[in-house]
């Protein structure tokens, strides 16, 4: 095929195109890269990212830098009823009510918290995206049968959504028995309706857009339209939600442990359990409650800040 433009005009066009093209690093950039650039310029995102990064690093190397084993009752001889020694040069965060080093337990507990948060979020994300994606595709393009499928799925999701999340998690945890897996499943389960609802709404909104009609006008098959055009446009809010869910998952997992539904395994410290334990000695050593509480809050805050900043960066309405 030859160009429809005459050679002379094509030449002129090429020269102008050269003049017009900005430095090449400005062009040929993908949307993701552009979002990342906006993210880097946002101080909120930087703070969030630093907190998250610090937390992740601690979770990974925590067991290596912890001065004592988390279960060793190194200071048991110093514990007397009503007396728990505070911070000292040997024990920077002091001892807990069983004479174990609080700093070591905090460091090792970080890994547990991160693990529960990530696995729970992944579980909720996968199940939610599956259900929401199915419902969204069915409602957007499936005709009458599709709308019926969507209705059935969504009524089920609405039921889950109507229940208070912690209550739902508690019932799931109670049903499955005490274990770490239970906590992950319970917390993940709670986030399923959020992801499903979000993706479905996003997909339905996207399937009304012109480019979906345009791709149908090109004769593309329905699954290609859904997977190649609707889904990629709908995922951004869901991914942002995953970051935000990570924050709530950490809080909820700690909540379940606090309520005694967490892992029964006492050898692995967990921030929620530590908080529950500290409750008993609150009048003697309130700091013991403050350390894990601050840990949970700061971590959750980090993920929330990062998530919010990501939402802003990906939001096409805020794009210049």
């Amino acid at each position: 095929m030859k160009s429809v433009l005459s050679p002379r005009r094509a030449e002129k066009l090429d020269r102008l195109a050269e003049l017009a093209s900005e430095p090449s690093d400005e062009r040929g950039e993908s949307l993701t890269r552009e979002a990342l650039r906006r993210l880097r310029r946002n101080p909120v995102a930087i703070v969030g990212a630093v907190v998250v990064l610090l937390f992740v690093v601690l979770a990974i190397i925590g067991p290596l830098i912890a001065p004592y084993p988390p279960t060793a009752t190194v200071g048991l001889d110093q514990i007397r009823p009503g007396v728990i020694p505070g911070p000292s040069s040997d024990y920077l965060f002091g001892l807990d009510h069983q004479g174990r080093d609080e700093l070591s337990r905090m460091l090792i507990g970080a890994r547990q918290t991160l693990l529960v948060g990530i696995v729970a979020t992944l579980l909720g994300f996968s199940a939610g995206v599956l259900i929401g994606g199915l419902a969204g595709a069915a409602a957007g393009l499936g005709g009458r049968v599709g709308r019926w499928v969507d209705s059935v799925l969504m009524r089920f999701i609405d039921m889950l959504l109507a229940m208070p999340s912690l209550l739902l998690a508690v019932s799931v945890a109670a049903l499955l028995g005490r274990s770490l897996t239970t906590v992950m499943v319970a917390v993940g389960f709670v986030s399923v309706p959020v992801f499903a609802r979000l993706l479905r709404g996003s997909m339905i909104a996207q399937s009304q857009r012109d480019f979906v009609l345009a791709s149908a006008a090109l004769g593309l098959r329905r699954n290609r339209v859904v997977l190649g055009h609707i889904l990629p446009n709908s995922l951004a809010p869901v991914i942002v939600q995953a970051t935000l869910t990570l924050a709530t998952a950490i809080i909820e997992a700690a909540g379940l442990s606090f309520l005694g539904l967490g892992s029964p395994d006492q050898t692995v410290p967990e921030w929620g359990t530590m908080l529950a334990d500290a409750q008993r000695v609150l009048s003697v050593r309130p700091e013991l409650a403050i350390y894990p509480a601050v840990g949970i809050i700061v971590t959750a805050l980090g993920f929330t800040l990062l998530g919010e900043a990501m939402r802003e960066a990906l939001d096409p309405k805020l794009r210049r």
Partner: protein
Amino acid sequence: MDLLEVSDLSVVFARRGEREVRAVDGLSFSVAAGEVVGLVGESGCGKTVTALAIMGLLPRGRWVNVTGKAAFDGGDLLGLSTSDLRDIRGRDIAMVFQDPLSSLNPVVSIGVQVTEVLTRHRGMNDAAATREAASLLDRVGIPDPRRRLKEYPHQLSGGMRQRALIAMAVACQPRLLIADEPTTALDVTIQAQILELLRDLVHSLGTALIMITHDLGVVAGMCDTINVLYAGKVVETAPRRPLFASPRHPYTVGLLGSIPRLDARRGEKLTPIRGSVRDVLPWHEGCAFAPRCDRAIDACIGRTPDVMDVHSVHTYRCVNPWPQTGPDVGPAVLVRQVAPVASEQYEELS
């Protein structure tokens, strides 16, 4: 035989609890192979709905009622199953939409969007499709196609986006191309380039083109045959020259009269058509245009006006048409003809 023959096409939207809307009401027209046919009319006269009905892109449901016939190459498009339609769309009939930005997927690169048509209908593998996509972009006048393939719609100018969409539409060398107001969202200078591109493409590929527009300047520059639509019916059909030289239907005359003309006397006023497209009479109660028509007589009310002069190439649906000589509307001023070179690139600079 004509490539596409639409006869008595009606589209009725009847949402529960709402007044039913007859968007298209017994519309008939035909397109021969390689011909450029215009569908002209105000907003809301059923142009786009007609195009969507032919493509089978109207939502399917009880509240959308499509009747009539759209014979394409012997078969009736309206009776086809969704999957058969999907095979035809993009391969035999393609469509270019009004707004190039919203018609492109913002998060998928141009390359993927062009190649997926090729892999779908022409069974190409990825490498062949990419090569073909680059040559398609080159053909529609996009410089440096290899680089553009990797870019995203927001990195292209408006004119280039429309060029890319046209490349996707002609990728399988369809026999019929429907262009729904392809230039409305673009700058005037770029409009001219896009029109020229469309004209050259349909000429070299032998594709028939249905040009949907409200812009008589576009029609005058491109179309062989023009159908003027009003309230979902064709009110006048004629080849380009007779239509502009001696329009018969008062609505056509009104449309031509509302265009500014270069040769008008200073101070001469434009004559708009009274009222709006919403002041219509249902066709079965008379001529839908009668409430806005200066030439309306008693015979206009009561029954649908018949098509007159059915044996000539110039037909119209009016009981009291303008005489052959017509009012002095003359050929519309064709200001949209000259294509300033590369204005699109200037647009990028600024």
